[in-house]
């Protein structure tokens, strides 16, 4: 009689055991995760992008202490926040930063060694890029601001200092209405800006013509500039030309095609809202100048840039500054501006 035995080979046994081990590992992982309701431990979050805190760099840890004025001392521990817990410090304001490239926030309080009532809290936001830092600085700029002469962008109010330099945006909020406190914070801010002058300049700001430029007038519109939803990432500034204030704007796009599309879009927006094309005084601006309820709008693109003038009272002043800007952009892009716009 034939005896049939069912003997598996060692290889088959080994493979089977390996597969079983994998299955057990999967099961264990699922059980471990399911029984721990703090999902954030495993990177599952419901309120924003995952931003695993990196090991604090010694250099970064020192940045906030550089905001301490002479004659002051720190009176609180340094606080650190990332995009996951920024709301714990600034609550409903957090999305404004996290949606604008926020990376980290360091905070600390300082007090005068000679007068402990003179306290301020410094908030140092790392916004990843100079552009992001300027965006949050510009959008929040107070109407009663007094610009602080310095290498970066900075202003003061009756109790606080605000500035951006490189990728940093900083608020120094005084806990008292004190000129002495504001003076001390100002000096610390200016020193910080000088020591952290960044090479990552914002291209648009370097391209605005310097003559007649109104210092401190630069504004950044992340979206909906001048009421047009297609106008995103627009920088604007003012010029004083023979008593007239002229608003000039500029934006760098990804490509000449995008720049032209933005310019065309804004042109149509103005026309659709009551604007009419008018004859340009300068030939280079032909087809680019519009009358909008007795003000002058100019829109053009050159290379990767979209630029123009908004609601100018005087067409001559508007065209003069527009030509300066357009020629600069043409030189940069190595050619003429787009034929139509």
């Amino acid at each position, binding site marked *: 009689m034939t005896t049939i035995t069912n003997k598996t080979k060692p290889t088959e046994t080994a493979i089977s055991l390996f597969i079983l081990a994998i299955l057990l590992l999967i099961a264990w992982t699922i059980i471990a995760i399911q029984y721990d309701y703090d999902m954030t431990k495993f990177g599952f979050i419901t309120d924003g992008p995952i931003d695993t805190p990196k090991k604090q760099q010694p250099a970064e840890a020192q940045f906030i202490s550089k905001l301490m004025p002479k004659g002051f001392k720190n009176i609180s521990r340094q606080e650190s926040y990332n995009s996951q817990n920024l709301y714990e410090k600034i609550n409903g304001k957090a999305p404004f930063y996290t949606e604008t490239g926020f990376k980290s926030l360091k905070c600390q309080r300082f007090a005068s060694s000679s007068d402990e009532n003179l306290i301020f*809290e410094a908030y140092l936001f790392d916004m990843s890029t100079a552009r992001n830092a300027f965006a949050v600085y510009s959008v929040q700029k*107070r109407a009663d601001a007094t610009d602080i002469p310095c290498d970066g962008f900075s202003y003061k109010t009756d109790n606080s200092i605000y500035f951006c330099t490189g990728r940093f945006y900083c608020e120094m909020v005084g806990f008292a209405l004190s000129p002495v406190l504001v003076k001390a914070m100002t000096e610390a801010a200016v020193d910080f800006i000088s020591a952290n002058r960044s090479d990552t300049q914002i291209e648009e700001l370097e391209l605005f013509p310097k003559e007649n430029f109104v210092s401190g007038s630069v504004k950044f519109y992340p979206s909906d500039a001048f009421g047009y939803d297609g106008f995103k990432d627009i920088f604007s500034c003012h010029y004083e030309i023979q008593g007239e204030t002229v608003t000039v704007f500029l934006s760098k796009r990804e490509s000449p095609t995008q720049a032209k599309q933005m310019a065309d879009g804004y042109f149509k927006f103005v026309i659709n809202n009551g604007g009419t094309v008018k004859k340009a005084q300068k030939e280079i601006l032909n087809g680019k100048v519009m009358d909008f309820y007795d003000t002058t709008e100019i829109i053009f693109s050159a290379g990767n840039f979209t630029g123009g003038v908004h609601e100018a009272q005087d067409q001559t002043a508007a065209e003069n500054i527009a030509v300066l800007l357009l020629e600069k952009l043409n030189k940069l892009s190595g050619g003429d501006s787009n034929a139509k716009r």
Partner: protein
Amino acid sequence: MPKDNNNLDRRRFIIRTAKAGAAIAAAGVASAMLYDKDGPAPGDGKKLVTVPDFSVPERQGQTISIVKGSERVKTVNRAIDLLGGIERFVQKGDTVVIKPNVAFATPAFLGATTNPQLIAEVVRLCYCRGGAKQVIVTDNPINDPVSCFTISGIGKAATAAGAKVMLPEGKFFENASVKDGKLIKDWPIFYDPLAKADKLIGISPVKDHERSGASMSMKNFYGLMGGRRNIFHQHIHTIITEISMLFKPTLVILDGTKSMMHNGPTGGAVSDLRDTNTLIASCDVVAADAFGCSLLDMKVSDLPYITMAEKAGCGISDYESLKPIMANLS
């Protein structure tokens, strides 16, 4: 014939296949039984609590008062008196919980938190005229509570007036749900002070808010929520509505003496504030906010949560229909 034969015969193959199929089917059934399509719930199996309704009976023509003036002690006294006096709201022996906005560790003059002078005066009224047995001042700030109560001056003012300051601790939280709510389901709330309370008074400043548009009476009670409440920010109008369905205060005091017009809710510069010199006392949170938004140069339609809360039965946005009582102490 060879003794070892590894080839399967048909019978053995069928048996093995059947066993494998049964194993797969069993695994599938087990998975289906264990599958939780809703995911982990925020709660941890605690019994749900019911938040008491602290509202007082309605009195026609005495639902909302609006007082103009720059001195908070005077305006709050007048505003409450116009609604019948503190005695209408606080009776002898009551335990009163006052819920101010203590959200940030910033000084009072920056307007990001409730003015401590106002809190002290309301505490005094509760004790001296209302005959309260105890007044508790409490909040669950996002920032460190000790810093918030200290630097805002609220802790000192409340204690000096005789109130007990209650800081949040884990054991003070219980889970609650809003009936028909989409967001507040089995969610931790700062319940312990409410469990002790006979009356609940909210006192909050008028502030611009980056997310919701404004932070006033209704949003003030967000500070009684626990857990990772920031996950509700993306549904901010719904969560404010559900908070208004959950917490029904006795009275709200909306301080528009200085309103934060820009850069809310944190502010930071005194220039963010405008002297609007108005204080509102109201038994209707929706009406309070509906008027309050005008101090921020806003309309009711700019704040969707007001209309949503009205639809949910939390109050009336047409505050004019409630015949507000006006006074001017300027």
